[in-house]
């Protein structure tokens, strides 16, 4: 117990160096007026992977909540962690339904393969193993969640494969690891309204929503905001090689084309990038030409 505490303190101190006041203030500013402590903590956790002591102290200070309350909330919810977590988070459900469907054996197997107990992080900081008490998918139990990916009816024999997959990364397009892939935030060049749609995520990020029209049909198109990812979703389906026209969903103005695609000579459609710059994408479905001009 004592030794444990010593280690975690040390970890806290190392990690705390990275916690800068500015980052926390930015999050607080964003959440200002919405009044949700949980939303603030969630965002801090998303940023740092856990809730650093220093961050909680800043939050309590700035939001005029007592530290006891902030700490109480932070320790109440399982999704918050006060200790730094490993790169991959493995969450095994041990709720009632999953329990009767064999969750204890799954947890045992995970513990054995990772060489840690539930609630701990491996020495190489690769994996953190946690248990939760019901993920609301009881019929699919036992449920294991690895890095946000849900696995149902998990069997002991499947675990080593799942851990391997997690080690490799579930989708190759992992922003942050690959420098060429990063999220951008775009807005309409006419009304300057943001085109980001937080309600619809692609690649785990808010998507870029644009209205499209082609061949007497119209609908919407949502693009991944990861520069370098070609994932998208449309309604209705757009046939390959169709050239579509893009409209801002807010001001309804057609995004004006200023140049043609160097590869297929369809019009290139520009969007403003927050922070300065223009990204242009080819309006022909299937053509992957795009250009990014940062100012």
């Amino acid at each position: 117990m004592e030794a444990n505490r010593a280690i975690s303190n040390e970890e806290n101190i190392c990690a705390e160096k990275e916690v800068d006041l500015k980052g926390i203030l930015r999050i607080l500013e964003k959440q200002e007026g919405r009044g949700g402590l949980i939303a603030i903590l969630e965002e801090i956790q998303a940023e740092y992977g856990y809730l650093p002591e220093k961050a909680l102290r800043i939050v309590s200070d700035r939001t005029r909540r007592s530290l006891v309350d902030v700490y109480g909330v932070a320790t109440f919810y399982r999704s918050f962690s006060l200790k730094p977590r490993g790169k991959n988070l493995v969450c095994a459900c041990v709720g009632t339904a999953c329990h009767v469907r064999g969750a204890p054996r799954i947890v045992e197997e995970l513990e054995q393969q990772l060489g840690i107990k539930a609630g701990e992080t491996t020495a190489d900081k690769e994996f953190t193993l946690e248990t939760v008490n019901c993920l609301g998918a009881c019929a699919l139990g036992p449920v294991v969640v690895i890095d946000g990916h849900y696995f149902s009816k998990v069997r002991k024999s499947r675990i080593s494969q799942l851990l391997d997959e997690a080690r490799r990364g579930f989708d190759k397009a992992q922003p942050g690891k690959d420098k060429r892939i990063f999220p951008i935030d775009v807005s309409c060049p006419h009304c300057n309204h943001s085109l980001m749609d937080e309600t619809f995520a692609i690649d785990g990020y808010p998507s870029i929503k644009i209205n499209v029209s082609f061949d007497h049909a119209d609908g919407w198109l949502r693009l991944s905001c990861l520069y370098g990812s070609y994932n998208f979703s449309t309604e209705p389906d757009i046939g390959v090689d169709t050239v579509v026209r893009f409209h801002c969903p807010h001001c309804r103005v057609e995004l004006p084309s200023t140049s043609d695609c160097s590869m297929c000579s369809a019009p290139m459609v520009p969007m403003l990038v927050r922070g300065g710059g223009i990204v242009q994408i080819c309006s022909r479905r299937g053509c992957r030409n795009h250009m990014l001009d940062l100012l």
Partner: protein
Amino acid sequence: MITLRINGLDVSVEEGTTLLEAARFFGFPIPTLCYMEGLSPYGACRLCVVEIGEGPSAKLVSSCTYPAEEGLKVRTASARVLRARRMVLELLLASCPQSKTIQDLASAHDIRQQRFRQEYEDCILCGLCVRMCEEQMMAKAIGFRNRGEKRDIGTPFDVQSDVCRLCGGCIYVCPACQLRCTYTEPEKAICGGCANLIPPCLEKEQFDDMMCYMNPCVACEIDKKFEKK
């Protein structure tokens, strides 16, 4: 004014009065543990149960949190209420048998034995200390942490709180803390002034062998850091 019937007696009380206050005012005793005048009612211990309503819709509620309602029929000592209360006391005895307060309550209810697995918890999570600290001392130095079976009372991050006033209020109200202060050597225990087990306001490390974390002790004024040398 609200008119209600307590144990067959028609009484009227101010709006906003709780059943507990009303019953006590008219002379019907109800035992309580987590209730204290001057602190907001919390409804944690369920010792103050009373029966309301009639026939099959009659139900048990905690009187310290239930507001008086027009025409309500309340029984403070029906067989059902007494049975429930005894059960609550047995459970309390099972978790914290060393508490004098709980022992006294149990003996007043003629309980000689409890039928659950015996534990020796330091804290029954009644929340009195937390409310004391917040509502009377305006400090908010301690609070509930974690949840489920890990729920406990303490300061954030387990370090000495910089807003604690060292008033000892939390210790004073705690019903679980009736063991005497044993300092580091039980036979030298003399004062019993602090008399607590999970007193939440100070850092725990240096007080490992002690029951009490007040520093300096409010009663004996021994400065423990100084004693260590």
